[in-house]
């Protein structure tokens, strides 16, 4: 009994260290994926909860960070698959806590542009260009073929360029 409690406390400590180290990065990925600050917090918390629930498996994974990212993306795609009766306007809550040196105008423009993309296209873009995953790694994480990832990347990038065209001069100095 005492051993069990000690092990649980140790697991909790390990998890908290991991979450402290990776939580902010996961949140930023979630924010790019969903475009809503509150929802990004919810997705991050849900992903971390699932990671904690399976901590024994996660900590022994080849890359716990990659595992966490995969859980987050699955949470996001699963969330998008729910029968959504209604949604908040995408930009209703942005940005509530502007951080120093952040670029709120850019954030709003980018998240609005990303919001126009289908969820999987958005996930492809975020994994490829934010998480620096290769085509093959992205394909594995999203359970797609590499060819599909390439097609989705091209399509999503084209649409993103189109969406951002009016602001492009200010976005890319």
């Amino acid at each position: 009994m005492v051993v069990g409690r000690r092990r649980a406390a140790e697991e909790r400590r390990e998890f908290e260290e991991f979450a402290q180290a990776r939580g902010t990065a996961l949140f930023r990925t979630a924010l790019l994926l969903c475009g809503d600050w509150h929802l990004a917090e919810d997705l991050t918390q849900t992903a971390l909860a699932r990671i904690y629930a399976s901590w024994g498996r996660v900590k022994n994974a080849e890359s716990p960070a990659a595992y966490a990212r995969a859980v987050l993306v699955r949470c996001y795609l699963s969330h998008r698959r729910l029968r959504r009766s209604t949604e908040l306007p995408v930009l209703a809550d942005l940005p509530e806590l502007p951080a120093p040196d952040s670029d709120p105008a850019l954030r709003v423009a980018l998240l609005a542009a990303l919001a126009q993309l289908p969820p999987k296209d958005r996930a492809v873009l975020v994994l490829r260009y934010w998480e620096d995953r290769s085509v093959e790694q992205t394909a594995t994480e999203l359970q797609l073929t590499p060819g599909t990832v390439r097609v989705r990347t091209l399509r999503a990038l084209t649409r993103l360029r189109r969406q951002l065209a009016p602001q492009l001069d200010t976005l890319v100095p």
Partner: protein
Amino acid sequence: MPSIAPEPEPWDAAERRGLSEDEVRPVFERAVGEAVPDLGALIAGAAEQGRAIRLRRRAAVLGTVAAVAGLAVGAGLLLRPAMPGGATAAVSALPVLPPLGAGTAAGAGTVGAAVEPTPLPSPSYPGEKVALTGPAAVMVLLSLLPADLRASEYAGQDESAGQGESAGQEGERSATRVVVVARVRVRAADGTDRGWIEVHLQSALAPAVSAPADAYGCTPRPKNGSCTGAPVPDGSFRQLRTDHRADGVSEHTADLLRADGVRIIATATGPAGGGPAPITLDRLAKLAQSPGWQPVIDRDAAVAAAAKLRPYQSLGSATIAPTPSRPPSGG
């Protein structure tokens, strides 16, 4: 014949202008690279949720083990006359479990008592019944708001899993489950933002066994706030929690696991930038304990709610007027 040059599309210009693949990452970086969440609250919440997931898994495993044991005993009794003596003795040594749902019987032991199942809604919801929908949950929430608050933006999501379907991931599988979230932003009469009120409803959770007493025991306690958890005389378990977050936002949570296996988690969060929760903890507890929260409702109520709420529009009283609208579709 003069040739007419096509008007260049804006995105053609963008393509020519750039945003090459190499420039996407810096744009992402500038947009969200400095976004910082309230990590402490996220981690504490995640640990609590994760612990609840573990408890649910354990309860599910216990239930499966007991069901298999029950089947084994039943099969053993049927085969008993034909079995040789040694096998009969082995079967006789198994604990005698009551039929599922029969409650604790003499000799049933703790396993039999622990798996007394919660009555589940029928997967097909016979008659004019349907699983609670997001809009219907939002309407219930609106009906329970204090008169001095009005609601604006809202969100409602529903997810129900039929027999054998997966209701989520990471082993969250159940026979029939309803999961609904309703969230409204609330404002004072003068339009001042007062924050959010959110209700999660989950049905078909593990029965009220020893685990909830532990899960609702306020461990860990909030660092900056208060928590009380205790059984309620009607057989429910209830935890009332207040957190004063580092960003100045106060949050009340009333977490109720009813005896019928329905869990209601009501949260009242103060406005971004800091402030008290929009309603008192006592009021939130009453909201969570309202009998209005039911996982299965009349089909008419679901259709009416879908007609009253329109996506992407605010929820001021003027916009709740019934308007023809299709019920929400999947996807």
